[in-house]
């Protein structure tokens, strides 16, 4: 094979000059590891959230007063049901309950356990609930984060809520929601809808908002128009807007990391460029010697290209594998706080392994091209100088 001697020589140089390359490989691995971890994490979170979003209702309506969302009359439910093309109309009661001593807030969700749609959704999440036992006393289901927080404050069996009218309401912890739901349910408390109303001080004919589906996408805009004609003070949010908001949130966080990555990569490339440009470097002498024994500039560039391509590929594979293990096996300790930050309770989330090969390919190209340029340009500059000077 015509190139066998060349690749044999390339392998020799790589193995016998390990110490020369080890620094570049280590730094490359760290950079690729960090970038891939961020990408894996944001992709996984986006995937999970969007998968969750797909199960959510198509529309949410709330009442607005003076530009502020207020409680929605439950009578709207029936009016919305009358609109053709609308299905699965569900009133919801939920809100933040502020635990002042520790400045933490829980998300309380009131569920009509006798509503077929709500009970099915709950059953999918936690399995069959023993209704008899659940309703034997005032009970609630709590997310993993809430459970841990309450335990840390010695609320092992129950928790006492303070209502807006100054009453205390003791509610028993019936069950913890599964850890797999932590991404959305970590700080959540699920309780009967009437109990939630009492804790929030809402009237019986009020709900927080109303959700519904419109199976025919083409009708979405018409339905929004009808709602605005029906209620002068309504605010309609469709699922696409929420999706966009989530995507923007993670793109924004990912973008920040991308910026940091760009700064790091530029710094590293400058260091590499300088290293290869050094007047008295062994690199320079090696190129001079090879030129003196008959290698052309093209041969030199070919050698340096393949030598550094191997370094980039090896670093890339190691970096990506380490990132995969770090995110999907170890659960991305430390980095998860940066991405899940904003939640007031610490959240343990199992990240769903999602790998977008297109994104990985872009990472490779964004890394490989500047890396090779940072090495090949100085190598070319040395190769075009007379070999006699390069060997000095």
């Amino acid at each position, binding site marked *: 094979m015509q190139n066998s001697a060349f690749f044999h020589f390339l392998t020799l140089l790589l193995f016998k000059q390990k110490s020369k390359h080890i620094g570049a490989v280590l730094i490359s691995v760290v950079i690729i590891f960090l970038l891939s971890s961020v990408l894996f994490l944001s992709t996984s979170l986006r995937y999970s959230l969007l998968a969750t979003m797909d199960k959510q209702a198509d529309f949410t309506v709330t009442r607005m007063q003076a530009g502020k969302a207020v409680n929605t009359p439950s009578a709207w439910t029936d009016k919305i049901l009358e609109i053709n093309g609308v299905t699965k109309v569900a009133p919801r009661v939920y809100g933040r309950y502020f635990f002042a001593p520790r400045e933490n807030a829980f998300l309380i969700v009131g569920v009509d356990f006798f509503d077929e749609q709500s009970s099915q959704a709950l059953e999918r999440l936690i399995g069959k609930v023993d209704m008899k036992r659940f309703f034997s006393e005032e009970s609630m289901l709590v997310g993993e984060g809430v459970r841990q927080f309450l335990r840390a404050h010695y609320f092992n069996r129950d928790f006492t809520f303070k209502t807006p009218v100054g009453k205390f309401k003791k509610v028993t912890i019936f069950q913890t929601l599964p850890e797999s739901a932590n991404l959305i349910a970590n700080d959540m408390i699920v309780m009967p809808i009437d109990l939630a109303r009492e804790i929030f001080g809402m009237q019986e004919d009020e709900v927080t908002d109303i959700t519904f589906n419109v199976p025919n996408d083409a009708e979405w805009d018409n339905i929004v128009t009808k709602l605005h004609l029906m209620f002068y003070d309504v605010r309609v949010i469709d699922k696409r807007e929420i999706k966009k908001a989530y995507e923007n949130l993670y793109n924004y966080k990912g973008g920040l990391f991308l910026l940091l990555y760009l700064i790091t990569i530029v710094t590293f490339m400058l260091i590499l460029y300088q290293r290869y440009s050094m007047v008295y470097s062994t690199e320079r002498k090696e190129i001079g010697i090879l030129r003196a*024994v008959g290698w052309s500039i093209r041969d030199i560039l070919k050698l340096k290209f393949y030598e550094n391509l191997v370094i980039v590929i090896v670093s890339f594979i190691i970096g990506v594998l380490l990132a995969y293990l770090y995110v999907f096996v170890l659960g991305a300790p430390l980095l998860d706080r940066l991405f899940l930050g904003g939640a007031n309770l610490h959240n343990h989330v199992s990240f769903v392994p999602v790998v977008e090969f297109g994104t990985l390919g872009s990472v490779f190209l964004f890394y490989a091209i500047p890396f090779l340029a940072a090495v090949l340009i100085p190598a070319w500059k040395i190769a075009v100088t007379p070999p006699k000077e390069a060997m000095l």
Partner: protein
Amino acid sequence: MVILENVTKVYNEGTPQAFEALRAVNLHLAEGETVILSGVSGSGKSTLLSLIAALDKPSSGKIIVEGELVSKLPDLHASAYRAKTIGVVFQHFNLLETLSVEENVMAPLINTGLPLETIKTMAAKSMETAAIVHKASQEVKALSGGEKQRCAIARALVHDPKLILCDEPTANLDKANSLKFIEILRTLRSMGKTVIVATHDPLFEGLDFVDRVFHMEDGAIVNQESGAGSPEQ
């Protein structure tokens, strides 16, 4: 075989630091000749060799080797010329320190398109001629000065060049190794190679296989003597 016509080399040309290293050098060497370029350090011997080896370009004049105008060769052709026609033994050996003797010797043949096995066979033959085959697998950095020199000779011979250029080949060797080198030169001569040795080592005086001795001073050939190996002697 080698023709130099009015070759000059000026470093830092056009600047106040301009330095004329070679001044109108003329030289005609026949095939199979062994010649010595003698002179003190800085007399222009090494510069002359590097121009013949196309490692640098002359400021003016013509250098023709084997009918090829070396002084005007573009890079690709200059590389091919170095890879085929000449072998150079440098004063400081200029070996790839992290590689073994065999790997260093193979280096000039890597881009010739020859199969790896053929290259290895050629390297073995060359190492045998340079009496370094017993150190083939040893890393160059672990070799003595004499062994490095023999490795450099093997590398210069591996592609069977017609012209061998040796730049101060014994400057970093003790007497015993210098004598060994001279014996290798004798072998090269018997192989019909054209050899140019730039040296100021007195050991090269009066060698029985040297055809001519050129004395250089301030970048010019000031004197030419027939060596003991010349038919005139």
